[in-house]
């Protein structure tokens, strides 16, 4: 079982995916992410879904260049995990 066709994603496709979670759980992605940062995600959201949703939000922000401290997005990611 394999797929010859390669799949790609960008900020638009990740935003579309995040909206699926918004509709499922009735929370805006920004509000969800704020709760996620504060470890206050509602119990009704499974941990796996919260993780995936947060990853979509982070990548959309990175791809749209919305890093608050002005760092190039991927540089920040790479620096964070340079020790891993």
């Amino acid at each position, binding site marked *: 079982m394999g797929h010859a066709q390669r*799949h*790609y994603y960008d900020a638009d*496709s990740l935003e579309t995916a995040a909206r699926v979670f918004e509709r499922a759980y009735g929370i805006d992605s920004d509000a969800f992410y704020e709760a996620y940062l504060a470890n206050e995600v509602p119990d009704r959201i499974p*941990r796996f879904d919260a*993780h995936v949703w947060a990853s979509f939000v982070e990548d959309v922000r990175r791809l749209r260049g919305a890093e608050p401290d002005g760092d190039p997005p991927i540089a920040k990611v790479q620096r964070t995990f340079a020790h891993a």
Partner: protein
Amino acid sequence: MDSQKYREERERECAEASATCRDLEVGQEKGPGAPPLAQLIGRAELNERAFVKMQETVELHQGHVHRIRYAYYLSFDGEEIGGYERSLVHGEHFHCTHRHRGHLPGGEPAGPVSFKEAVNAAWDWLSDHGYPPPGARRQARRLWRLGLRRPPP
């Protein structure tokens, strides 16, 4: 390694762990000057009632796969039992056995966990609850006949 080989590698790992890959999606980041990042999401089905949900964000570089973030969670009869994750925000590796409110999101710090280790842990939980992997009961009976372990349940 590219995303196609990454996908094939995961399918092989599933088969080796007595699991079946379902709804497996692997995508590569697109854009001018895009870094070699890819995302994997899907399920490793263990039996008709249990599967491990998996998500990984990886850097594919010169034949190596470096996981930036990951999550592997066991679902049994539609309920999330627990799992392992590493997020960008929290940074540490977490082992989450249940959900509850509080500063730590229901988890405790843990070391890095591979996909295969997460699936093996899921099989351990299932075995403890009467659902061992295929062939395990046969193996247990064989070991019992050889006098190497106590009688199987």
